[in-house]
């Protein structure tokens, strides 16, 4: 630790204003705060700060994503070997390693492109580099199908960072969740690579699949009128889907980390699940087709519902800020997600669109919650007077 501190102390004069490497100032600062907390105190306003700054908040979210990521890697290998019928003859580590090699390039591309653009904008505007992309960079790979070409990942990341974040003023100013924006961009721009039956399972061109293999996700099967799922497989995550979304168990571990540390809002998670269950129940009551008859709680373990509820809806920037607002916001995400999922045949999964839609309305919800509060208190004041 001492050596690291010495290194930063020594290089600091070199990046001061007017010094030789002044343009590296933001980079220096960025890496310094990765190891240490700045000693500076604020000149006005609040003087006492929690040491949990943006960087550490983001770190915990990344930590919470690790179970989903590791399982996603294993599942990528699992789906591959299952498809070619060699699952029994392949060891655990080769299965995991196959998935690891498939997922790693996607993560690298997402981080290199996203951080590159963030660094460039920070330097250009003379801002400090901040950590806004740390979480988005890992969320983007987790919401993509494993077969997405790398250049598409790069393009979507660039689009999301520039048009989702930088044009609004950078980290903390984005209206929509950047990772979902990246996915939505690909979903509408390259539908053939983002949906259908052939994108979810990694297969080489020479691989021979076993008889009866389809590659379709439970969502696609359900939309086609076959909503029977193996509950245990769906809960543990041994189903085809986007890299990080399949295992409800791994996501649950992440949710526990987020709730215990207070980083993610349990109100949003709970209300999203409540909204989903409510809509599922409602559809069960008025069911006219097999999908609507599917037991309502199955919705929680297939598709991206759990992942969206835990990691996407709770994004503190794009979610509602007020406590009442969080309940409304989460509940409507759940309702709209299931509504799109079951009733709109054009979109097999509704979570992405539901969250982006409610992101748009979050400020409006907050506005009315605050207004209602003011009105209520004014009334009370009048009675007292």
């Amino acid at each position, binding site marked *: 630790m001492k050596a690291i501190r010495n290194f930063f102390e020594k290089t600091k004069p070199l990046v001061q204003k007017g010094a030789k490497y002044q343009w590296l100032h933001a980079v220096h600062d960025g890496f310094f705060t990765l190891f240490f907390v700045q000693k500076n105190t604020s000149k006005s306003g609040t003087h006492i700060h929690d040491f949990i700054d943006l960087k550490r908040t983001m770190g915990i979210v990344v930590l919470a994503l690790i179970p989903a990521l590791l399982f996603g890697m294993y599942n990528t290998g699992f789906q591959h070997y299952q498809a070619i019928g060699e699952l029994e003859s392949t060891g655990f580590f080769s299965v995991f390693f196959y998935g690891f090699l498939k997922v790693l390039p996607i993560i690298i591309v997402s981080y290199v492109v996203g951080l590159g653009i963030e660094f460039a904008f920070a330097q250009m505007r003379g801002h400090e580099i901040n950590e806004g992309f740390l979480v988005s960079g890992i969320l983007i790979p987790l919401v993509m199908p494993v077969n997405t070409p790398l*250049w*598409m990942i790069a393009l979507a990341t660039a689009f999301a960072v520039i*048009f989702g974040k930088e*044009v609004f003023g950078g980290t903390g100013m984005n209206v929509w969740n950047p990772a979902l924006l990246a996915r939505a961009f690909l979903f509408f*721009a*390259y*539908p*053939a*690579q983002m949906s259908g039956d052939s994108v979810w399972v990694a297969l080489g061109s020479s691989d021979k699949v076993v008889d009866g293999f389809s590659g379709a996700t439970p969502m696609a099967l359900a939309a086609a009128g076959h909503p029977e799922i193996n509950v245990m497989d769906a809960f543990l995550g041994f189903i085809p889907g986007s890299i990080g979304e399949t295992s409800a168990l791994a996501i649950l571990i992440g949710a526990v980390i987020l709730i215990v540390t207070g980083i993610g809002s349990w109100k949003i998670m709970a209300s999203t699940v409540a909204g989903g269950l409510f809509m599922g129940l409602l559809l069960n009551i008025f069911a006219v087709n097999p999908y609507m008859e599917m037991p309502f709680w199955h919705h929680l373990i297939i598709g991206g519902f759990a992942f969206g509820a835990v990691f996407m809806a709770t994004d503190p920037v794009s979610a509602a800020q007020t406590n009442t607002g969080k309940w409304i916001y989460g509940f409507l995400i759940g309702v709209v997600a299931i509504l799109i999922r079951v009733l709109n045949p054009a979109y097999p999964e509704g979570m992405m669109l539901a969250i982006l839609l409610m992101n748009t309305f979050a400020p409006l919800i907050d506005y009315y919650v605050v207004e209602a509060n003011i009105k209520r208190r004014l009334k009370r004041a009048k009675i007292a007077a």
Partner: protein
Amino acid sequence: MSEREALFSKKNLKLLSDPLNSSNPITVQVLGICSALAVTAQMKPAIVMALSVTAVVALANVIISLLRNTIPNRIRIIVQLVVIAALVILVDQVLKAYVYDVSKQLSVFVGLIITNCILMGRLEAFALGNKPWQSFLDGIGNGAGYGAILIIVGFFRELLGSGSIYGFRVIPESWYITHGGFYANNGMMILPPMALITIGIIIWVQRSRNRKLIEN
């Protein structure tokens, strides 16, 4: 009037060049956006639309400028509309006669030139108070400013969305995933949201080059 102004005096040339940059109808005044989003998925309709609007706005400007001292102030809007509508019908007939397929593609948007804000804007703001020649130049300039943006947007949308320019394929078939390559057309470029973002990028580029346009 003591001095006759030269036909292409500096002041008159400014009428032509300003709408191309610092008072562009689309990127600065933000007028005529709907048609700019609707007809720019390919270059050919974009160019035809640009020419049609230029013709209509220039001729309407001249006609209104000639009539400007005889139009009663209280009914001037309806007079302007009659002039524009007549010209648009003429343009529509010409398009149907000579470029029928493009006319089909543009469909209702030729008729909707009548409601294009650029036209009413120029008539109200310029033709009602200026002489015919200046009004004509102003019309040509604004039509060109509108058309230039349409053609730029159409160029990028057709290139990235369909892989061709003015109907000619520029991205080889063998690059496509369906033919064993790696490339795919960006389907979102064909949709209007991406046209809006493309116009946004043009506005961004223009304002970073011409910093006077940045609002505080």
